C-alpha cells in the first residue's frame, strides 16, 4: 500500500512541477499577477509531495517490504537499521529519488528566501526551477521508478553492496547532490533574467549567495567522496581521475570560475554575458555528470547503470536545459550591455583571468574524460588517465597560484601592477625563507613537491598578510574569501607532499616478523578470524613502533559478506597531522600464516581535505554576508512591483533596440 502512496505522490509531484513550470511564466508574459503569485505555493507543494514520496521509500526499507523490487535488491534482514536507511540511495532508482527530493528542497528554499525579489522575478526563477524539477521527476517516474512491485514476493532480500555499508556512503551522496542540484539555482536565475531581458546587478547579487552555498556543498561532497575512497577501497588513493569523479569535479571547477566572475559582474556592468554563459555551463556540467554516471558510455571504476535508455533520457534533458539556455542566450545576447569601465591593471582583470584559468581547467577535465569517446567514434581505443590529468593540472594551476595574491591585493577599477608587486615583495621574501626552512626540515624533497610547497606557503603567507592588513574592515564575504584561499594553500601543500613524498611497500610478513621503514617499525602479530554484525572478517594485527615506543596498533581486515561472493579489503589507518600510516591486507601466502601486506606512509594527506573543508567554510561564510540581507530589505518589494502596476514593457533594456 505504502508503495502505491509513494508512487501516487510522485505522480502528483510531476503534475505540480508541470504547473509550476507553466503558470508563473504565463503570468509573466500575460501580466497576470495572480498567476505569478501561485509560484511560491506551488514550490512548497512540490517539496511536500516529493518529500512524502521519499519518506515512503525510507519506510519501505525500514519495514523491509521485499515486495518492492528496489527494496528487495538493496536490502536484507541482516542489514542494520542505519544501512537500511542509507540503502534508500544505495542504487540508481533511490539515488535519483534523493536527487529530486533535494532539488525540491532547493526550490522551496528559493521560494522562502526570496522576499527581496519582485513577483515577476521570483515567478520566473521558480518556473525555471519547475522545468528542472519536471525533467528529473519524469526521469524517475518513467525510467527509474523505485516503487515497482515484485511478484511473487521474496522472503529475503539480496543485499546492499558492502562498500555502501559505511558512514562515508551514508552522508556523501546527499551532500554531493545538494551541491549538484544547488547549481540549478544560478542557472534558473540566469535563464529567468534572459527570459525577461532585464539582466542587471540585482540579479547577480541575488545569485551570489546561492552559488556560494551550492559550491560549498559540492566542495564538501567531493572531499567526503575522496576521503571515503581513501579509507574504504584499501589501495591508498584519494583521487583516481575516474569519469565519475571528474563528473563531480567539472561543475566544481566551473562554479569556482562563476563565483569569481560574479564578483566582477555584480559591480560593473561588464561581462554579464560571460556570467550568464558560465551559469548555464555550470548546471549543464552537473547534468552532464548525471549523464556520464548513469549512461555507461564510459568505463568507470565506480560501476554504474549501463542503460542506454536512461542515458538517452538524461541526454535529452541536457539538450533541453543547455540547448534551450544557449538558444535563449543567442536570442538575447544583444540586449546584454557591456561597459567594462575598468582598466587592464585592476582586480577585475585578475578575477576574469581566474575565471579563464578555471574554465581551461574544466575544459581539460572534460577533454580528457571524453577523448576516449572521440577515439571510439573513429573505431579506435585510447586511455586517458592520471598521468595526463596530473601533468596538465600542474601546468594550468601554476599561474593560478602565482596570480592569486595579486588579485586579492589589486584595487577595483584601476591600480598599478607596480604598486601591488611592491606590496607582494615582503611576502615573497618570507615565502622563500620559509620554503628553504621546510626543505631543510623535510629533505629530501623532489622538485615537484618543492614547487607545491613553495606555492602553498606563498598562498598562506599572502592570505595571512591580507587578513592582517584588512583587520577591522573585514566583512563576512571578504573573510570567507580569505578562508577559502587559506584552504587552497593547505590543499596545494598537502597534495604536493602526499603525491610526491609518500612511501609504499608491498611485502610478505610472517607472524612475529618486523619491518622498518622511514623510522617506523611494523610488527605483524598474525591474522585471526572473527564475526561482526553481518560479515566475517580476517583481521590482522600490526604493532607500529617509533623510537622503540608503541604508537599504535592497527587492524586491517579482509571481509566476506555471506550474501555477496566478493571479498572486500578494509584498510587500517593511523591518521596524523604530519602523516597517515595505512596498512592493507592482501592474501595468505603460506602455511605459516604469512600474508602479503601493503604499507603506506602518506605525509600531510589530511591537510588536503582540511584545505577542502576550509574552502567550504569560506564559501558558506561568504554566502551569509550582511550585504545580501541589507540589499534585500532596501529594495522593497513595493518598488519592484511597480513594474506590474505600471504595466511596463516586460523587457526593460529597451535602450538597445535593433535600430
Amino acid at each position, binding site marked *: 500500500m505504502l508503495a502505491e502512496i509513494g508512487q501516487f505522490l510522485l505522480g502528483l509531484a510531476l503534475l505540480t512541477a508541470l504547473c509550476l513550470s507553466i503558470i508563473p511564466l504565463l503570468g509573466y508574459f500575460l501580466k497576470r499577477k495572480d498567476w505569478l503569485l501561485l509560484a511560491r505555493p506551488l514550490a512548497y507543494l512540490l517539496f511536500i509531495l516529493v518529500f512524502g514520496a521519499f519518506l515512503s521509500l525510507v519506510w519501505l526499507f525500514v519495514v523491509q517490504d521485499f515486495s518492492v523490487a528496489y527494496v528487495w535488491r538493496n536490502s536484507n534482514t541482516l542489514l542494520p537499521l542505519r544501512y537500511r536507511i542509507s540503502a534508500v540511495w544505495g542504487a540508481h532508482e533511490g539515488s535519483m529519488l534523493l536527487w529530486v527530493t533535494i532539488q525540491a528542497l532547493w526550490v522551496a528554499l528559493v521560494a522562502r528566501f526570496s522576499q527581496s525579489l519582485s513577483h515577476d522575478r521570483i515567478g520566473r526563477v521558480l518556473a525555471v526551477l519547475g522545468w528542472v524539477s519536471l525533467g528529473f521527476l519524469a526521469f524517475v517516474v518513467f525510467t527509474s521508478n523505485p516503487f515497482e512491485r515484485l511478484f511473487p514476493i521474496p522472503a529475503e532480500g539480496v543485499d546492499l553492496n558492502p562498500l555502501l555499508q559505511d558512514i562515508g556512503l551514508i552522508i556523501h551522496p546527499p551532500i554531493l547532490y545538494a551541491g549538484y542540484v544547488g547549481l540549478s539555482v544560478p542557472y534558473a536565475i540566469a535563464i529567468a533574467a534572459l527570459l525577461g531581458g532585464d539582466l542587471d546587478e540585482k540579479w547577480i547579487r541575488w545569485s551570489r549567495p546561492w552559488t556560494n552555498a551550492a559550491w560549498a556543498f559540492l566542495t564538501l561532497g567531493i572531499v567526503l567522496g575522496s576521503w571515503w575512497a581513501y579509507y574504504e577501497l584499501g589501495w591508498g588513493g584519494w583521487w583516481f581521475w575516474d569519469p565519475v569523479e571528474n563528473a563531480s569535479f567539472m561543475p566544481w571547477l566551473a562554479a569556482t570560475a562563476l563565483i569569481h566572475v560574479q564578483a566582477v559582474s555584480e559591480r560593473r556592468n561588464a561581462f554579464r554575458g560571460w556570467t550568464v554563459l558560465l551559469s548555464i555551463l555550470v548546471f549543464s556540467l552537473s547534468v552532464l555528470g548525471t549523464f556520464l554516471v548513469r549512461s555507461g558510455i564510459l568505463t568507470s571504476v*565506480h*560501476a*554504474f547503470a549501463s542503460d542506454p535508455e536512461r542515458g538517452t533520457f538524461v541526454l535529452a534533458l541536457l539538450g533541453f536545459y543547455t540547448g534551450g539556455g544557449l538558444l535563449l542566450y543567442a536570442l538575447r545576447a544583444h540586449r546584454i550591455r557591456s561597459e567594462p569601465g*575598468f582598466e587592464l591593471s585592476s582586480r577585475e582583470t585578475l578575477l576574469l583571468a581566474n575565471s*579563464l584559468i578555471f574554465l581551461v581547467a574544466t575544459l581539460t577535465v572534460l577533454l580528457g574524460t571524453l577523448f576516449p569517446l572521440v577515439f571510439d567514434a573513429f573505431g579506435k581505443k585510447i586511455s586517458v588517465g592520471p598521468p595526463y590529468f596530473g601533468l596538465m593540472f600542474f601546468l594550468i594551476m601554476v599561474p593560478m597560484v602565482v596570480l592569486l595574491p595579486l588579485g586579492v591585493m589589486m584595487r577595483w577599477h584601476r591600480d598599478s601592477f607596480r604598486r601591488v608587486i611592491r606590496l607582494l615583495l615582503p611576502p615573497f621574501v618570507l615565502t622563500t625563507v620559509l620554503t628553504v626552512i621546510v626543505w631543510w626540515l623535510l629533505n629530501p624533497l623532489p622538485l615537484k613537491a618543492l614547487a607545491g610547497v613553495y606555492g602553498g606557503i606563498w598562498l598562506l603567507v599572502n592570505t595571512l598578510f591580507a587578513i592582517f592588513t584588512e583587520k577591522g574592515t573585514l566583512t563576512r564575504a571578504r573573510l570567507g574569501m580569505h578562508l577559502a584561499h587559506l584552504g587552497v594553500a593547505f590543499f596545494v601543500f598537502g597534495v604536493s607532499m602526499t603525491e610526491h613524498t609518500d612511501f609504499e611497500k608491498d611485502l610478505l610478513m610472517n607472524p612475529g616478523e618486523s619491518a622498518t621503514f622511514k623510522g617506523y617499525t611494523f610488527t605483524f602479530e598474525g591474522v585471526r578470524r572473527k564475526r561482526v554484525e553481518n560479515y566475517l572478517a580476517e583481521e590482522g594485527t600490526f604493532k607500529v613502533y617509533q623510537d622503540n615506543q608503541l604508537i599504535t596498533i592497527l587492524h586491517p581486515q579482509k571481509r566476506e559478506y555471506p550474501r555477496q561472493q566478493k571479498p572486500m*579489503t578494509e584498510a587500517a589507518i593511523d591518521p596524523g597531522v604530519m602523516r597517515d600510516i595505512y596498512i592493507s591486507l592482501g592474501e595468505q601466502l603460506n602455511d605459516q600464516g604469512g600474508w602479503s601486506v601493503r604499507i603506506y606512509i602518506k605525509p600531510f594527506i589530511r591537510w588536503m581535505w582540511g584545505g577542502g573543508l576550509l574552502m567550504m567554510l569560506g564559501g558558506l561564510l561568504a554566502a551569509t554576508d550582511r550585504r545580501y540581507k541589507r540589499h534585500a530589505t532596501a529594495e522593497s518589494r513595493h518598488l519592484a512591483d511597480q513594474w506590474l502596476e505600471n504595466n511596463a514593457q516586460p523587457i526593460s533594456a529597451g535602450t538597445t533596440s535593433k535600430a
Partner: protein
Amino acid sequence: MKTQLRKKPAARPFFQYPRKWLLAALLFSQTLLAIDVYQFDTPQQEALYRHLTEELRCLVCQNQNIADSDADLAKDLRQEVAQFVKQGKTQEEIIDYLVQRYGDFVRYSPPVRIDTIVLWTLPFAVLLFGGWGLIRTIKANNQTNAAAIAKTHSQPTSADSPTEPDS
C-alpha cells in the same frame, strides 16, 4: 558478449557484466586489493615496477591500473612487468611491448601523436587565445568608454577603495 577469465585456484569468473542488482550509482566493481610480493635487485627497479604497474591499465577491469587490480590478467601482466624490469628493460621497451599487443588502451598516459595533438594542446591554446581576447576586450572597451564616462560621469567607480568590502 561475455568474456570471462579464470580465477586461481578455483575456476570462477571474476569479470562479468554488471548484474541487475549492480546497477547502482556509486559502486566499485573491484573491491579486493591485490598485493604481489616481488624481490628486486635495486630500489630503482622497484620504483620502475611500481611506476609501470600504476600507469598500465587493467583491460578487463572497469577502470583500474594493474597495480591495484585483483584480476587474473592483471596478475599475469604484473608478473610479466616484474620479469622485464628484472631483466633490465627500460620503461619504453616494456610499454611498447604491451602497446604492441593490446593497443594504446593499455597505457593511462596517452601518447603524443598527430591524432592526440588536440588532447595535449587544446587547453593551452584556449588559455592563450582566451587571455589575448580578454586583454583585447578590456582595452577596446576601455577606450570607447573613456569618452562616454568623461561625458556622463555615470560611473561611481572613483569612490572605490581597496578596502571596499567584497570578495
